[in-house]
């Protein structure tokens, strides 16, 4: 999937200069995912967090764009069962009290195919600034210049300690890498 997206980069989202307004997109949740990975000594724990909702508005002409994403933390999965329980438990995401995570970014600007997206992420009820790197692609099967179906790949990292998610800090690293692949349909 990501390989395909990378191959598409060369034919990405040209020509867009004529556009000068925000385009609203609906998330195709079934074909989108938020993946995370965190170091566990010499190993890596991987998993996914389902996306509950997303409101994406992009101005391809360089005007302000916005993203609001809500994740279902309580539905998070992990590469092995105990890690999943630990992730959702009170020492990490505390999903019984905080079943959702959110990412909100307003006013960022999209370049030709990439953007730095400074926003606010809320985990365990704690909100902290984070900047994600984003790449935008046309989806497979669309014509050049067709912006009706887009794919967005965003990546970044957060510190667990910043959000009080400090459980098992002696075993599991603080930095959590996040990879988001969002498939968007124009509304």
């Amino acid at each position, binding site marked *: 999937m990501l390989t395909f997206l990378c191959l598409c980069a060369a034919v990405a989202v040209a020509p867009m200069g004529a556009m000068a307004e925000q385009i609203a997109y609906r998330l195709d949740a079934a074909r989108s995912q938020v993946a995370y990975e965190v170091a566990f000594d010499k190993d890596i724990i991987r998993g996914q967090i389902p996306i509950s909702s997303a409101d994406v508005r992009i101005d391809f002409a360089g005007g302000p764009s916005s993203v609001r994403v809500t994740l279902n933390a309580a539905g998070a999965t992990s590469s*092995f069962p105990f890690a999943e*329980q*630990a992730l959702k*438990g*009170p020492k990490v995401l505390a999903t019984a009290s905080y079943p959702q995570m959110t990412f909100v970014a307003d006013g960022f600007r999209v370049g030709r195919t990439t953007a730095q997206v400074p926003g606010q992420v809320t985990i365990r009820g704690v909100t902290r600034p984070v900047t994600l790197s984003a790449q935008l692609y046309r989806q497979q099967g669309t014509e050049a210049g067709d912006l009706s179906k887009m794919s967005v790949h965003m990546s970044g990292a957060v510190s667990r300690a910043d959000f009080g998610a400090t459980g098992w800090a002696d075993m599991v690293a603080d930095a959590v890498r996040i990879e988001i692949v969002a498939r968007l349909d124009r509304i």
Partner: protein
Amino acid sequence: MSLWNTEDRFGLVTRVLHWVMALGVIGMLGFGTYIANMTVNMSNFHLYAWHKSIGLTLLLLALVRIVWHLGSRVPKSLPAPKWQEALARVVHFGLFLLLLAVPLTGWIASAATGIDVVFWGVTLPSIAPASEAWEDAFFAAHGVLTKLLLAAIVLHIAGAVKRRDGTLRRMVRGQA
């Protein structure tokens, strides 16, 4: 070879329970020390599950041993100075208490982490709320009680070896 204790000898059931638990408990002291100090990763994470399953098995054996002890005749002690008899009684009582308390505190602390306690593949109902305060308190208690258990075992072995009156032989062969 009788299964039952008599007035002057230990039966097979008592002796098998004693030595199986002795091996299990001493092995677990070493095993627990090892996993408490290891660097945890995917390749050794399963050792926690083994520790919990073996520990709970020893808890069950301790309960069986206590029921057997209460329900069967206890052979008379071999003659010894009163202070030795008194000390032996205190150490035996302490051992039984610790054989229950050590696995119980470990079980409660594990449950308080919010992660399932799995006993040989069977997930047990949680016996404690998911709480860092409980987890910290009961893991601390588990550590302290384990050291007390080690001290009690050392005293128990020292007493058995020092007496040289057939007490140790009676637990090995049944009679002095």
